[in-house]
């Protein structure tokens, strides 16, 4: 399992989100999930990928607080440390 650094987590999350609909260049740290048309079902898929990759379990209440791609990256890095 790779270390959950800002860099590795960002790569994993951005790649995961880009597969769900948005163009890869749209998926920046500041982009909101709303602007990317990423909804709760999409975020469950992202959470599954994060868990598989880094062993970090994200629950529904964690996901609800997320607004931007950066929020998700920071949360995973914080949980992993």
């Amino acid at each position: 399992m790779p270390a959950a650094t800002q860099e590795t987590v960002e790569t994993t999350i951005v790649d995961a989100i880009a597969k769900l609909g948005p163009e890869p260049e749209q998926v920046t740290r500041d982009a909101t999930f709303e602007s990317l048309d990423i909804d709760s079902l999409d975020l469950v898929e992202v959470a599954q990928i994060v868990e598989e990759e880094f062993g970090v379990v994200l629950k529904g209440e964690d996901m609800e607080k997320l607004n931007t791609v950066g929020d998700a990256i920071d949360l995973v890095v914080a949980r992993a440390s």
Partner: protein
Amino acid sequence: MSRRVVITGVGVVSPLGNGATTLYERWKAGECGIESGVGACSDFEPAEVLTKKELRRTDRFAQLAIAACEEAVEQAGWTGGEELPVQAERIGCVIGTGIGGIATIETQHDVLNESGPKRVSPLGIPLMMGNAGAANLALRHGFKGPAHSTVSACAAGADAIGTALRMIRAGDCDAVVTGGAEAGITPLAYACFGAMGALSESGISRPFDARRDGFVMGEGAGVLILEAAEVAEERGATVLGELLGYGASADAFHLTAPEPGGGGAARAIVRALEDAGVSASDLHYVNAHGTSTPLNDRSETDALKAALGEETAKSLPVSSTKSAVGHLLGAAGAVEAVATLLALRERVAPPTLGYEVPDEGLDLDYVPDGPRPLEGANGRAVALSNSFGFGGHNAVLVIAA
């Protein structure tokens, strides 16, 4: 006097290709979309119609419905969203299916077995649910009236259209987007149909022929735009034809076998004619269910004789679309309703392909020798489209053009 219901748009994805006209013209020309014993929609490229997000969020059966709907709304002159010509809250959506998203069920079941419950997709249920066709069409186009699905095996497409007719007549809707979709050429579905002995071992769909040995699995979708006649007229829509009536019944005889003598099917035909306000002598064509199974084709022949009278039944051209595309299960009734409409509009019945050897007692005119001009259709031409499903479901539509 109940509201008249007209057809203003049609769309089809079938084993003969994309488009309603493609289906009709190729079938009429004697071409068959069955290859290696299955009727797959090999020309269908979902990514040409669906967005990246829709592709991930739909099973193949819903993707087929979306593509057929796209063609139908375009023909009807509906541009979608804010610009719908009928008030969105007054547009219903009823899309039948026999099975629903079975490919998703199989894939997710594999994930469950191989990786455990935490790895199954959160999209599993919305992909596999039988109402996903109706849900996705409503979502994509903004149809805000009643939306749901009919599930009656191989009668589901016809039952959807009949239900849509009732919704407009009852005043619940001014228009309904309706039809059927199926994508059941999967390992599990194929094995199960095989286990029950329903599939053709020869891989040939030849309805009514003495050598018929079962149906050929197909997939596809058909969608029709139905509108209250006064609504279509007010907006200046091009009317393709009229849905005159619908009749349905249950055999209550056997889980899968049709009632010998076709009594249940005959009752649905009689009811459909009554509902349409026409008599057997007003008909010009019958688009048969004609599955190529030994039992259906016999009981359907008996049902037509019982419902229409032997003389009238024998005088009508009766052909089966399944001879050209195989059995599209829950999509069959819708795809065949579209084929029926186009046959009426062109005044030409396509043939039952592959029919060569008559079977004892199956003595109707199955249009064996190529396309047949419809006789006597000087004013409007009227046809029956039959659909019967496992479970003993019978659904019959009366269409005019």
